[in-house]
C-alpha cells in the first residue's frame, strides 16, 4: 500500500535519513522504532510532504507522493497524526474535527465519522465546545487521532501517540489503535515505546541514526537480543 524506496533527507548539511526503504501492506500495523533522534519523525514527515526529501521515492497506492502537492495527500486517503499532536488550540474540539473533514464534501459521511470518533473517544463528545488548548495531553492525542479519522483515511501515519501520556492512557490509546486496525485501517506507527508498539504490530523496522538496521516480523523483533538490549530495557 505504501512503499518507500531509498529515501534520503537532509537538514542543511546533515544527512538525517540515509537510504531508507520500507513497505506497509494493506491491513497491517507496522512500527518504526528507534531512539530519540534516529529519524523516525523525519521519515513520516517526508512521506506526508511536510519535508522535501533529496532523493528516493514514496509510492502510496498508485500515487507518487513526492510529486503530489502536500495538501492533496490526505485526499488520497493517507492521514498523518503529527508528533506533539498539533491540535488547533484556539479552536474548539468540534472545529478541530471539522477541519479534519476539510476535504470531504459528503455531509452524511462526516456525520458518521463524527459519531465514530465520539464512540471511540466519549471524552471528546463531552468537551466538544471546549477550546482544544484547554484539553489534557491525553485528550489532545485523542483529538489528533479523531481529527485524522474525520478524513475517512485508509491509512494512518501515527507519530509518537504515547508521548507524555500516563501508562493508563498509553494503554487506552494503543487499544484504540488496534480497534482502528481491526476496522480495516492500515497503520504506520512511530514510537519510542518499542515494546508496546511492536506488541501490537505485524512487522517492525528498527531505525538507528537515520538507517534501518533491522526489520522483520514484530514478534521476532521483540525476541531479538540486540533489540531487547538496545530498546526494550534488557
Amino acid at each position, binding site marked *: 500500500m505504501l512503499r518507500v524506496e531509498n529515501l534520503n533527507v537532509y537538514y542543511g548539511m546533515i544527512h538525517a535519513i540515509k537510504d531508507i526503504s520500507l513497505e506497509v501492506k494493506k491491513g497491517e500495523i507496522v512500527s518504526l522504532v528507534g531512539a530519540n533522534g534516529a529519524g523516525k519523525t523525519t521519515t513520516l514527515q517526508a512521506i506526508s510532504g511536510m519535508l522535501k526529501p533529496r532523493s528516493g521515492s514514496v509510492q502510496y497506492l498508485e500515487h507518487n507522493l513526492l510529486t503530489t502537492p502536500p495538501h492533496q495527500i490526505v485526499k488520497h486517503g493517507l492521514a498523518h497524526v503529527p508528533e506533539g499532536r498539533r491540535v488547533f488550540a484556539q479552536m474548539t474540539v468540534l472545529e478541530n474535527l471539522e477541519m479534519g473533514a476539510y476535504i470531504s464534501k459528503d455531509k452524511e459521511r462526516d456525520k458518521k465519522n463524527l459519531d465514530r470518533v465520539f464512540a471511540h473517544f466519549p471524552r471528546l463528545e463531552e468537551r466538544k465546545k471546549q477550546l482544544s488548548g484547554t484539553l489534557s*495531553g491525553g485528550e489532545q492525542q485523542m483529538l489528533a487521532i479523531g481529527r485524522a479519522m474525520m478524513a475517512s483515511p485508509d491509512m494512518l501515519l501515527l507519530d509518537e501517540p504515547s508521548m507524555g501520556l500516563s501508562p493508563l492512557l498509553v494503554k487506552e490509546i494503543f487499544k484504540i489503535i488496534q480497534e482502528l486496525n481491526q476496522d480495516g485501517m492500515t497503520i504506520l506507527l512511530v514510537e519510542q515505546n518499542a515494546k508496546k508498539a511492536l506488541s501490537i504490530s505485524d512487522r517492525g523496522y528498527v531505525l538507528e541514526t537515520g538507517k534501518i538496521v533491522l526489520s522483520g516480523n514484530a514478534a521476532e523483533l521483540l525476541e531479538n537480543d540486540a533489540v531487547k538490549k538496545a530498546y526494550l530495557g534488557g
Partner: protein
Amino acid sequence: MIFLSHLISGISLGSIYAIIALGYTMVYGIAKMLNFAHGDVIMVGAYICFFATMSYGWHPIMGVLLSMVVCTLLGIVIDRLAYKPLRQAPALAVLITAIGMSYFLQNSAQLLWTSSPKVFPSVIGNGSVKLFDGALAIPHVTIVTIVVCLVIMSGLVFFVNKTRVGKSMRAVSEDKSAAQLMGINVNSTISMTFAIGSALAAIAGVLLCSAYPTLTPTTGAMPGIKAFTAAVFGGIGSIPGALVGGILLGIVEIFAKAYISTQLSDAIVFAVLIVVLIVKPTGLLGKKISEKV
C-alpha cells in the same frame, strides 16, 4: 456638546483605522508578516475610485466596487510576486520587501498620476444630521463610515467563526503544517487573506478621502502606519482587537488634536501605543499562546 462632537469624529476616524488595521492583522495572523504596502493599497483604491467617478462619471457605488476589484487583484499580485517567493525566508527579508513594495506603489502612483493633489469628490454627500436643535451636527460621511465599519466587522467575525473557509483560515494562522495535513491549501489561503484585506483597504481609501478629501500618492502612508499601530494596540492577529485598537486610536488622536496640540497629536498617539505595550506586550486583546506538551 463639543466633547460629544469630538468623540463622534474620533470614532469615525477610528473606524477607518479599524478597517485598515483588519488588513494588517489578518495578513499577520495568517502569513506572519507585516505587509507595510497595505497603506499604499488604500491610496491606489482611492485613486481608482477618483478616476472612475470624476473622469468617467461612474456612480460612486460603482466606483467603490471597481476600486475593490482592482485592489483585490493588486493584493493577490503583490503576494504572488513579492512575498510568495519568500515564504521560507527570514522575517527581516520579508519586512524589507514589504517596505520596498510600499515605495514601489507610491512611486508608481507618482509616475502615473503625478504628485499634485487631487480633490476627492464626496462620494457620500456633504449633508449632515442635526441633533439637539442644531447644536450637534454629524456629517453623513461620519455616520456612513461608522456603519460600514460595523457591518464589515460583524461580517468578518461571522465569516471567520462560522464558515468552512473562515475556519480554515484560523487553522492556517495557528499551524500551517497541521493545516496542510488536513488538506488545506496554505498558499491559496494566504492569497485569499491578501484579497480580503486589500478589498477592505479599497473601502477604507474611499472613506478616508471622503472625510479628508486631499488625495496624493502618499495619502495612504500615514493612515497605514497608524492603522498598523492600531492593530498592535488591539493585539495583532485579533479581529476584534483591530476594531478596539482602531477606534481607541481614532479617539485619542482627535482628543489630542482638540485639547492638547494639533502638532503633537501623532506623537501622543504613538506614546499611548508605547505605554500600552509596556503594560501589556500582547496588545489589549492579544492572545498569549500557551501550548501543552
